[in-house]
């Protein structure tokens, strides 16, 4: 690697003059990396404008190359993935030090996303399932990953797996956020274009904490479906109903997170008849995606009778997983109680107070 780096620096157009770009993945699926490539030939513009110094998915730079850099040497780091083990944490802290501008890129880094759904269970339950109980597990000896193992006289070390998944900004200081699972290609390019413009033309940076590559409203605001403010008597899961192609999905009883999700994706999912699942995260001016959705649902459920309301609500099979599918790391209530779970009692009915 050092060879090619040298070659680059002896180039007539000195690479050193180009701002440095790093892309990293922590606890993520890799979709955000693919999304960057989805900008297609514009990736060449990225390469023309930046010196890519670290990108494990696509290039062969190593962690030690980053460790060897000066603090603040990287101009921009797009960091995707949540923080769920010691290695993720180490890399987050390292890249924070080395990068002038650190961007939480994609839903995992912004709000925990799918990895953070494990905050609705415990590390023990996760391990039990993954290493012992899942139907596809073949693990007769019951092996579980250990932080330290000895193999043929060598010490092997694995990063410690955390009880609770964190968003990037719960671990290090973050400058900007790009939401989405994954961020849509046109939005990624819009963000990169803005950055290039700022670097080239000396434009001022947006205020710290700005959400880039997304809108200022909710998915409903850019959804092409007609909303009639209907009332819901029953919830349907997507496989239980053939929805009307033009009408609002929520109006038809399909749990659509549109009202509780930031816009910016051009309402991808409802446009193709799938309910929004909430990947662009918390909309502006709200603090908790689940609370926002509960509020929205309470307005459309068509009943004033507590018992009937409960029956209708039975149609929402997984409240925590549906309302916080992408934002559980940032949920107001934190993680599920593991140290001292209270045995939930049968839900008290409300007739006692309805009288």
């Amino acid at each position, binding site marked *: 690697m050092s060879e090619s780096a040298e070659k680059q620096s002896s180039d007539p157009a000195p690479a050193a003059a180009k701002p440095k770009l790093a892309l990293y993945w922590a606890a993520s699926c890799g979709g955000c990396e693919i999304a960057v490539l989805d900008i297609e030939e514009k990736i060449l513009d990225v390469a023309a404008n930046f010196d890519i110094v670290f990108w494990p998915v696509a290039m062969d730079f190593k962690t030690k190359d980053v460790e060897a850099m000066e603090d603040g040497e990287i101009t921009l780091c797009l960091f995707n993935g949540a923080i769920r083990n010691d290695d993720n944490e180490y890399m987050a802290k390292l890249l924070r030090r080395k990068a002038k501008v650190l961007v939480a890129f994609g839903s995992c880094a912004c709000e925990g996303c799918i990895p953070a759904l494990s905050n*609705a269970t415990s590390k023990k339950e996760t391990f039990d399932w993954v290493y012992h109980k899942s139907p596809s597990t073949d693990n007769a000896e019951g092996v579980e990953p250990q932080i330290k193992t000895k193999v043929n006289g060598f010490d092997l070390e694995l990063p410690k797996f*955390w*009880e*609770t998944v*964190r968003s990037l*900004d*719960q*671990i*290090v*200081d*973050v400058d900007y956020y790009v939401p989405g699972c994954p961020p849509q290609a046109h939005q990624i390019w819009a963000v990169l274009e803005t950055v290039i413009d700022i670097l080239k033309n000396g434009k001022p940076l947006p205020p710290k*904490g700005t959400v880039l590559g997304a809108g200022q409203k909710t998915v409903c605001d850019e959804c092409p479906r007609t909303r009639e403010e209907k009332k819901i008597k029953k919830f349907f899961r997507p496989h239980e109903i053939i929805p009307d192609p033009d009408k609002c999905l929520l109006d038809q009883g399909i749990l659509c997170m549109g009202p509780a999700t930031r816009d910016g994706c051009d309402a991808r999912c409802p446009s193709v008849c799938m309910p929004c699942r909430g990947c662009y995260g918390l909309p502006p001016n*709200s*603090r*908790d995606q*689940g*609370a*926002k959705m*509960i*509020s929205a*649902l*309470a*307005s459309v*459920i068509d*009943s*004033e009778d*507590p018992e009937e*309301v*409960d029956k209708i*609500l039975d149609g*929402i099979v*997984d*409240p*925590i*997983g549906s*309302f916080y599918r992408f934002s559980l790391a940032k949920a*107001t*209530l*934190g*993680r*599920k*109680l*593991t*140290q*001292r*779970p*209270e*045995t*939930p*009692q049968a*839900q*008290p009915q*409300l007739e006692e*107070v*309805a009288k």
Partner: protein
Amino acid sequence: MTTVTTSAPKTETSAGAASDKDTAWKPKIVAFLCNWCSYTGADLAGVSRLKWSPYVRVIRVMCSGRMDPTFVLEAFRKGADGVIVSGCHPGDCHYVEGNYKAMRRVHLIRRLLIDYGVDPRRLKLTWVSASEGDIWAEVTNEMAETIKSLGPLRLEK
């Protein structure tokens, strides 16, 4: 944004023992009362010198329908062990149907609490009219008993 330095949640010693050892612990209960009925009812309880639980802290909202679910979650996060939402009786809401909305919200939040491993009895919904000071006193005393029996809510953040 908050920075969390460690992933390891604080370990608690056995749950039941907490109430015996922690003699200093007193339940914290936050109550959201609608301006027109329940708040006046609670006021009446005070004026009538009825004994009602000192552990209940009242927050007045214009209507129980103004009670955003965020308020409830935020109250728990900031240390409440229980939350009461109280409004006008069904049919009496001064904004017509705010209390029905509150009822649906409370039902949904309870389901969320169950997913969190939190006992749903920590969130109570009641209807108390302006003349029902005695009922308000009863509600708070009952809720205080419930919360005492459940012990402190220790969220893991």
